């Protein structure tokens, strides 16, 4: 829940326009996806790591969000070592690339209030309001569903049902609880949709914005700098002869 809904406090990145942050993360993704070499990945990742303290993100706080990443990167490395015939440099490049691509994504969500993200998607990126605010409201239901889940699990205990030592029984118990949660989610979502539509959400009228998301020079600069770094990294790889597209 906290990974989605509660931003890290106090970072300078919080002041940037969410669409700009998303664009920067997308630029990193696009620029790194084409090649799997060590030079590109390490330059971009290095730039990100340098930028972290500049953006006011403390390493320890980031670790609480980003801890699965090094595990994932290690997993990719091991899988490739065992299963593919690629050289060590390529394998290292693929792992570092994973980190370099994922880190900006985590930072976007960690430094952005969900409502600001929704506003920015609608205002800057022309995402349909129905999708953006519908999703936003749905995220707000998650804490309620968490309570429902706890109740559903307790109810099974109260009915005398447990899995004992049988994995099959455990799966069945889990499936029945998930079904009950699905029903609860549908009930809540239906009520929420009625509440939203009853306040004019489904009208064909153009919506106004109560909260303006501004796209300032600094936001443009963020995107520009990111593109420049990614381009430079690719250029350096080309010059070093290590650039090779990962096709197929």
């Amino acid at each position: 829940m906290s990974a989605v809904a509660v931003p890290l406090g106090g970072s300078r990145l919080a002041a940037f326009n969410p669409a700009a942050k998303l664009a920067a993360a997308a630029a990193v993704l696009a620029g790194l996806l084409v090649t799997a070499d060590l030079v590109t990945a390490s330059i971009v990742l290095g730039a990100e790591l340098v930028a972290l303290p500049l953006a006011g993100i403390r390493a320890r706080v980031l670790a609480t969000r980003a801890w699965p990443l090094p595990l994932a990167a290690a997993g990719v490395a091991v899988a490739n070592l065992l299963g593919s015939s690629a050289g060590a440099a390529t394998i290292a490049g693929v792992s570092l690339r994973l980190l370099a691509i994922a880190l900006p994504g985590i930072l976007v969500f960690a430094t952005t209030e969900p409502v600001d993200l929704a506003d920015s998607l609608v205002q800057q990126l022309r995402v349909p309001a129905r999708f953006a605010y519908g999703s936003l409201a749905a995220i707000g239901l998650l804490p309620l569903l968490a309570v429902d889940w706890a109740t559903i699990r307790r109810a099974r205990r109260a009915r005398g049902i447990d899995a004992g030592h049988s994995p099959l029984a455990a799966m069945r118990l889990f499936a029945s609880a998930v079904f009950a949660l699905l029903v609860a989610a549908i009930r809540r979502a239906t009520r929420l949709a009625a509440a939203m539509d009853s306040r004019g959400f489904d009208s064909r009228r153009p919506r106004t914005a109560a909260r303006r998301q501004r796209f300032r020079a600094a936001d443009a600069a963020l995107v520009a700098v990111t593109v420049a770094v990614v381009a430079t990294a690719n250029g350096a790889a080309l010059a070093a002869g290590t650039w090779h597209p990962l096709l197929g």
Partner: protein
Amino acid sequence: MSAIVEARGWGWRHAGRRQWAVRGLDLRIEAGERVLLLGASGAGKSTLLTALAGLLRAPEAGDEEGELAVHGRPGLVLQDPASAIVMGRVGDEVAFGLENLGVPADEIWRRVRDALHDVGLSHPLGHPTRALSGGEQQRLAIAGALALRPDVWLLDEPTANLDPDGAELVRATLRRVLADRAATLVLVEHRVGPVLDLVDRVVVLRSGGGVLADGAPGELFARHGAELRRAGVWLPPGPGGAEPASRVSAARPPGEPVLAAEGVGFTYPGADRPALVAVDVTARAGEILAVRGANGSGKSTLALLLASLLEPSSGSVRFLAGGPDRPYARWRPRELVRHVGTVFQDPEHQFVASSVAAELAVGPRRVGLDAATVRARVEELLERLALTGLAAANPFTLSGGEKRRLSVATALATDPRLLVLDEPTFGQDARTWRELVALLADQRDHGRALVAVTHDEDLVAALADRQLTLAHGRALGEPRAAASPAVALSR
């Protein structure tokens, strides 16, 4: 005078259902009228309100016949405020509707402030909506509708989910909001007595179609009181209204203690304050104990502790009428269900099977009864709880009253010594309410110990042998004996 609502032979059937929710409705509501909409469960009150709000569109949502016209902007307030919250902050929540209407930004915030002031919410605009109490969330919902300046207010049981204090605050807010406006009101509410001053006309829907009664409150209840009562409609106290029903007292004095909680306390993981502190309570055979208190007072937590669904952070809960030697909170589910039955506030949380009969068989099978006994037990319960025709139906497709009866039946299926109930009469019509009261009284007279967590003051007055009131996690005094029998109830 122009009509705000006109229905001519209107009917609606929800998609995928065989029965029509509403049929043959002729209704005309003039601007400025304040209507109380009544009817037994299933009579179509919520369907009508939803349609008046413009949310039902054939053919996607279902089939329609006749005509229904609403000449004006509707403002809808639903029963569950937690599931109606769209935004994370108070100001944004009220602004949501104004954004949808295309109101310019600076005017939005002016109207937001006015609406919040009118409903009496003084929280800052950035206050998190999830941190509000139920009553505050409902007032926020009213503010959200108020900001849109509706012509017709549609309120579907706005106080049903609230504790008595929250409900009174919401009613006071509605009085204030409706007082100096010419708005029309259509209100569905079970607790009829407290809202009579808000309405000048009562319309009763007939299950199966049409209007059962329509007129001024006093005269309507006087003329149709008995018929309405039979149909399961809640009536206000007074002439022609509810008879002062007698309290259903215990047939015998209470027996030996079945469960004892001593100094029991609980803190949820990650919480900064304990939910429950040092509560002592005993449940005795043949006795009904009511646990009361505002939302957040710890009553649900106490119920979970007494049902062995939570392990106490401090103090102890001991089961005194048999069962394994282990600490109560460590009993295995199979052992627990043999001695304790729990009824949850939302019956759907506890359904585990795909047919009513299978649902009833779960408990008896878990405690190891043989197939023949299980079958007999299921038959008996189906009969007792009037569920015989529904044996093959999927529990999730039952009506609200049927689901409640099924959830009580499943808790009784293993013949437990202790029954713990969380808001058992929540959302029930008058007929199901009376059946439930009779059933619980009967269980008490058979020697079961019952603990009911409830807001329902009429239930407490009818059945409770002892009451325990909680506030902020602590017991207010000792569990005391219930009020005297000479109390007039509103049934």
